């Protein structure tokens, strides 16, 4: 392995709590709990996990849409916290976001041309005379013709709308785009078009992606590094090739064997895990232990730390070492 490039973004020990009011009682949910990630220039870090695991909260912390209760964010070598106003503006230009729902993320009564021009004028990236040309260029780089500029979002298909969101995101020439389930609302036949577009833009513009998805097959296709989250914590982190060849954490294994493979010859015989995610159900020990088929006494006593099992491969499980040998898996899980 060559020496890794200095990270574009480094988040350390991020934590975010929300207060929930339900049935009169106020509960605290730790949506993101001591999460550290690194984004390498030109690479994709994928975050996978089920609803409520904290994926989207993490995205909002990284883009500064929300402020973390604890932890530090360093972008391009400088902590976000000590940045000047102009540097903050620069950050908001360097880091963009694409959401799942292209319907909700575009203001309905603006035409596509104005929607794409808006970030250009906010960041003073094009003179009034040059805007139109620049908008056409940007639209063309996401595969849309200049005539689209005159349309309203509701006059576009789902795929076209997602292209417009991507156009807005790349308009500022960002270095990082946080993509929160960018293709899951799209039709199957349109999904691969958008995936290809994201891959092309990454290659051509050297973009980094923080890619949030529940679709493991897609993540396997586009990610360089994979992080698995469970109830606010990263439970496994590894290079994509390593992760998909041999996931180590029992929850990662469960996710992988629950993903419906589009091949009838490879049917799952039985669901990999029983039970459901229950926020706040477990206050001591490993938070996966109520569903983990491999849980032992130790798992109830202390929360397993996220420790390396190999260079670049981190696992938060008391039995991570044993699980490196395949025998235990086959004995217990078949």
């Amino acid at each position, binding site marked *: 392995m060559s020496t890794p490039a200095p990270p574009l973004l480094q988040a350390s020990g991020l934590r975010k709590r929300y207060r929930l009011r339900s049935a009169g009682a106020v509960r605290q949910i730790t949506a993101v709990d001591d999460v550290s990630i690194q984004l390498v220039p030109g690479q994709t870090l994928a975050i996978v996990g089920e609803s409520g695991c904290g994926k989207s909260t993490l995205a909002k912390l990284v883009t500064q849409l929300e402020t973390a209760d604890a932890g530090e964010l360093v972008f391009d070598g400088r902590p976000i916290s000590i940045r000047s106003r102009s540097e903050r503006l620069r950050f908001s230009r360097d880091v963009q976001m694409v959401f799942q729902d292209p319907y909700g993320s575009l203001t309905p009564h603006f035409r596509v041309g104005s929607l794409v021009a808006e970030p250009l004028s906010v960041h003073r990236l094009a003179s009034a005379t040059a805007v139109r040309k620049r908008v056409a260029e940007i639209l063309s780089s996401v595969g849309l013709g200049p005539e689209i500029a005159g349309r309203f979002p509701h006059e576009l298909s789902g795929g*076209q709308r997602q292209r417009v969101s991507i156009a807005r995101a790349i308009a500022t020439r960002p270095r990082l785009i946080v993509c929160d389930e960018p293709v899951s609302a799209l*039709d199957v036949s349109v999904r*691969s078009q958008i995936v*290809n577009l994201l*891959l092309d833009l990454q290659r051509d513009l050297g973009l980094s992606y923080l890619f949030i998805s*529940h679709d493991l097959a897609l993540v396997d296709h586009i990610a360089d590094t994979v992080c698995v989250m469970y109830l606010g914590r990263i439970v496994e982190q590894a290079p994509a090739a390593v992760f998909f060849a041999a996931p180590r954490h029992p929850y990662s294994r469960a996710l992988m064997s629950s993903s419906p493979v589009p*091949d009838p010859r490879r049917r799952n015989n039985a*669901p990999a*895990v029983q039970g*459901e995610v229950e926020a706040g159900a477990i206050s001591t020990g490993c938070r996966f232990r109520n569903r983990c088929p491999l849980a032992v006494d130790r798992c109830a006593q202390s929360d397993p730390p996220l420790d390396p099992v190999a260079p670049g491969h981190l696992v938060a499980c008391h039995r991570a070492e044993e699980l490196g040998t395949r025998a235990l898996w086959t004995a217990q899980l078949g």
Partner: protein
Amino acid sequence: MISDASAVLTASPVLDVRDLTIAFRHRAGPVQVVRGVDLSVGHGEIVGLVGESGSGKSIFARAILGTLPRQAEVLEGKIAFSGSDLRRVPPSEVRQLRGDRMALVPQEPMTSLNPALRIGRQLTEVLEVHRPEIGSAARTARAIEMLDLVGVNLPGERLAQYPHQLSGGLRQRVAIAMALICGRVELLIADEPTTALDVTIQAQILDLFVRLQEQQRMSVLLITHDLGVIAQTAQRVAVMYAGELVEVAGVNELFAMPHHPYTRGLLDSLPRGGNAARKSHLPSIEGTVPSPAAPRQGCAFADRCAFRVDICGRRAPMLEATTSGRSVRCHRWQELADRFACRDAVT
């Protein structure tokens, strides 16, 4: 206690839909959203109906259940359920069938659950309507038995809970229990039953469908846009595109050797993972699904099809039976079937 599945072994399918055409009334005239669909579901069979958003899957299901929206109308065709033509049966009788001999599991369980009623009440109410001969104590026992059957833990305690106190996965299990509680369901129509659920829960619910089908000889029409869900669950698959079935085949045959260019395009576009392919372009189908209101001439897939020839734009292909008991709607299927067979479908 009610004996399960009154399913009698017959050669005829539970559901047999022929040439079904459904239109919405619009100011500019009727818009056909389901066009000449032929589909049957055999006893104890899980048939997957796959198609993209707006292709007409839900409207097709609602026509069978007799719950079409007011603006929609069946223009043509026959819906035979256990031998009787539902289009000739009075609406009151169709209503009686629903929840009794055929039932719906919706995408969002809250659409079939009443938020203001305790789980126990909702379940026993179905029995009151459809099985009035069952006494109240037996109804409660039956409710607990059903919750247990669909994998709800602590079934006795759930009876007193309200839907909002349950997770999405549990709510979907309750909705399934409610669909099955009469004990006479011959056909379960599940419309995107796992789309709103997480993958580990989805795997549990799909496993439940397969168990019900195997143990109770339940027939299931499983509607989804997810080819993975189909591959894991269905025995036969119907592929819908822009209101028409373009291909019907056994699940193994369809995935190993799609005959229709659309089916093949869909399968090819799925990311398969693996280091060699990582970050490479995925094969994709260019363009988008045509609007149902757009005038149609020739093959509905023609403007996106890499194999189109002159005739495709002029004459609409029919759904043709192939020699191997499948059907496909494409002028060129024979010639293309040989070509598609050469590809390594699933690695």
